[in-house]
């Protein structure tokens, strides 16, 4: 067990990040409208997201369904290329594409462990494959495989090597998927909802394993989840996304105990919490906005109980509200400085975003997407 009291108490130190996304932006072309001639429209899945992952820390990315979490993780893994912004490894921009040297350092773990394990091959083969691709096995491949299984607490390892993925429980499969990601000795692990498909009683086992990898092996970990309670449990820092943008970043406990952004407050007011003394009253209402025609100004303003005039015209700046704590909201800005953008500026901004040329051909379909994921995570 590794989420030591010390780990939980010490706020994350600001060390140079291993992996960083700066101003990441991604849009998809989607069918829009109805009738026989639906047009295509641009959907801003991720818009100007900056996120940094440091060695020996877990950063959680939380937000509602469709807020862009997976898209951010995929851009960081270089499974898809951003349309704007850059991915930096050790402070150096990574070129387009996904060089093998990058795959060795940055690995992704998916929600569905089946997606990354080859069902027709035994566990041993699934683990040996990346070792041989990357020439990492050393003299004794069997020993290397057993060592990997031990690292994810599948013991004794001999009991698992000869099995097929379908012969394992969901939790065991996810452990193998993590072992497979670890086989290339990465420095960064990007885990997209690694426990959402697992039984409730075995989720903590996987989260604790991730905590171990952080503490023992000093991995930089991104934990993508919609479960803010588990993010609080595991992560050092929580980053909250809303409608494709980051709205708040803070040390975990600070974020859940003192949320600064109205959306984070809404999220927390809605989360199940048996310890609540009072019945919850939702801090806001309504549904998440369209990403094709996102609201002007602050994207949360149509649902925000505190929205002011400026909120609907001008996007709020990122404001530091405490140590390691930033929130994008006009409430934190001194009243005298809440100056709306000039209408011309608003119009210019709107047209500039909609005119940005695509930097890469748009992805074609999800099935194709998935295959690419598997193929690439192999290399």
């Amino acid at each position, binding site marked *: 067990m590794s989420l*030591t009291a010390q780990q*939980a108490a010490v706020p994350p130190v600001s060390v140079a990040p291993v992996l960083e996304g700066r101003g990441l932006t991604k849009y998809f072309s989607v069918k829009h409208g109805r009738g026989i001639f639906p047009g295509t429209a641009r959907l801003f899945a991720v818009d100007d997201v900056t996120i940094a992952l440091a060695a020996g820390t877990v950063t959680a990315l939380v937000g509602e369904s469709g807020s862009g979490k997976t898209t951010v993780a995929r851009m960081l893994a270089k499974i898809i290329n951003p349309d704007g912004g850059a991915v930096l490894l050790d402070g150096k921009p990574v070129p387009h594409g996904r060089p093998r040297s990058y795959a060795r350092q940055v690995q992704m773990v998916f929600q569905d462990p089946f997606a990354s394990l080859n069902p027709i091959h035994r566990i041993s083969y699934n683990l040996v494959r990346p070792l041989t691709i990357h020439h990492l096995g050393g003299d004794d491949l069997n020993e290397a495989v057993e060592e990997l299984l031990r690292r994810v607490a599948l013991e004794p390892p001999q009991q698992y090597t000869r099995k097929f993925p379908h012969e394992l429980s969901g939790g065991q499969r996810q452990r193998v998927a993590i072992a497979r990601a670890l086989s290339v000795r990465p420095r960064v692990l990007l885990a997209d909802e690694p426990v959402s498909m697992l039984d*409730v009683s*075995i989720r903590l086992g996987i989260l604790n394993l991730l905590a171990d990898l952080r503490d023992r092996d000093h991995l930089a970990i991104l934990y993508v989840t919609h479960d803010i309670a588990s993010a*609080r449990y595991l992560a050092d820092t929580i980053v909250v996304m809303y409608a494709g943008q980051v709205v708040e970043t803070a040390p975990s406990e600070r974020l859940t105990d003192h949320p600064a952004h109205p959306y984070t407050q809404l999220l927390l007011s*809605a989360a199940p*919490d*048996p*310890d609540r003394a009072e019945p*919850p009253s939702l801090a806001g209402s309504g549904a998440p906005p369209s990403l094709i025609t996102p609201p002007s100004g602050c994207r949360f303003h149509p649902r925000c109980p505190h929205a002011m005039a400026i909120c609907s015209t001008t996007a709020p700046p990122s404001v530091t509200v405490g140590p390691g704590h930033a929130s994008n909201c006009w409430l934190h800005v001194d009243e005298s400085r809440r100056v709306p953008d000039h209408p011309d500026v608003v119009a210019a901004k709107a047209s500039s975003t909609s005119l940005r040329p695509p930097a890469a051909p748009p992805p074609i379909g999800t099935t194709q997407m998935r295959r690419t994921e598997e193929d690439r995570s192999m290399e």
Partner: protein
Amino acid sequence: MSEMSPPALAPRTPTHSSTREAEPVLEIRGLNVDYGFGTEAVHAVVDCDLVLRRGQVLGLAGESGSGKSTLSMAAIRLLRSPGVITGGEVLFHPRPVEGDSSDPTIDLLRADEAELRRVRWSEISVVFQSALNALNPVITIGAQFDDLLKVHRPHLSSSERWDRGVELLEMVGMTGDRLRSYSHELSGGMRQRAMIAMALALEPQVMILDEPTTALDVVTQREILEELMGLRDRLGFAALFITHDLSLLVELADEIVVMYAGRLMERAPAASLFRAPRVPYTYGLLHCFPPMHGERKPMEGIPGSPPDLRALPSGCSFHPRCPWAMERCRKETPVLTRLDASGREAACWLHSGGATVPAELAMVDPGDRGPSAATRRVAR
């Protein structure tokens, strides 16, 4: 069949502060369900007893595959093949009709199709786990309300049926114009709301809600639950609420039953179950949900994984994962037994035959002193 009443029904009596005394509306006794036959049969539900009382929210918690859906679908005879009910009875007690002293109780497991049709939807309605597929995709929401009301409320005119549809959608926080929508034009949350409206259409006495909000975002989930609980307070139906999210149930239910590998493990008022679980599995399950407040502490979850029903451990199915398992647990299967005067029940050998109860399972029961979720709601 009861006549249509105006939307605001008789105010419900606040029975749930003393739910134990409210009269039963649905009683499941000794229910057994298998999938398949003979030696191939998998026992998905074994000897389950449940009592749902008028106006009560009864939570049924358990992990994936524990048999929650099977139990509830069998109870209203909507089980799909190869599921077979191999024993038990399910007694539905309709509201007594004035001037009629005969016992109106129906055993749903022995009722014929005509009787079942009379009870389903009008008296007992269901919101299915996969509500996204439960709506008919080729006709509008309005047409689906219309079909339902035409059959069950034949005296209503076409425009009255439409008005009733509008009223129902508004009840669940949607606008009436949505009657003209097809289900694929609605978001997941709206489809779920439409399903709930449909389940409410005939003012049933019992609603079975099988994971009604699991696929939704927390904010949408909370909105729908608030609406649902408000409606429960107003309309007075009883609800069997099924979910794997025990932390949610604690907030929502009056009483909670915990299921594991086809059997009921523990039954207690929500606050008691949360503060003072008596069964190791419940204890473990409660420690699977990291808290939102307080110091962060390492938590372990439950070792091992849920069992395969085709190869269940002997004795207590939980024993391989139980930190307190004794010799007896490996051999004999405990049954749900009343613990003390409080009326709570547990299926665990630690509570019988002079075994030493570990401190973790002997915490003080807040009992009736702590306000239940329901009384807190009413106080609001």
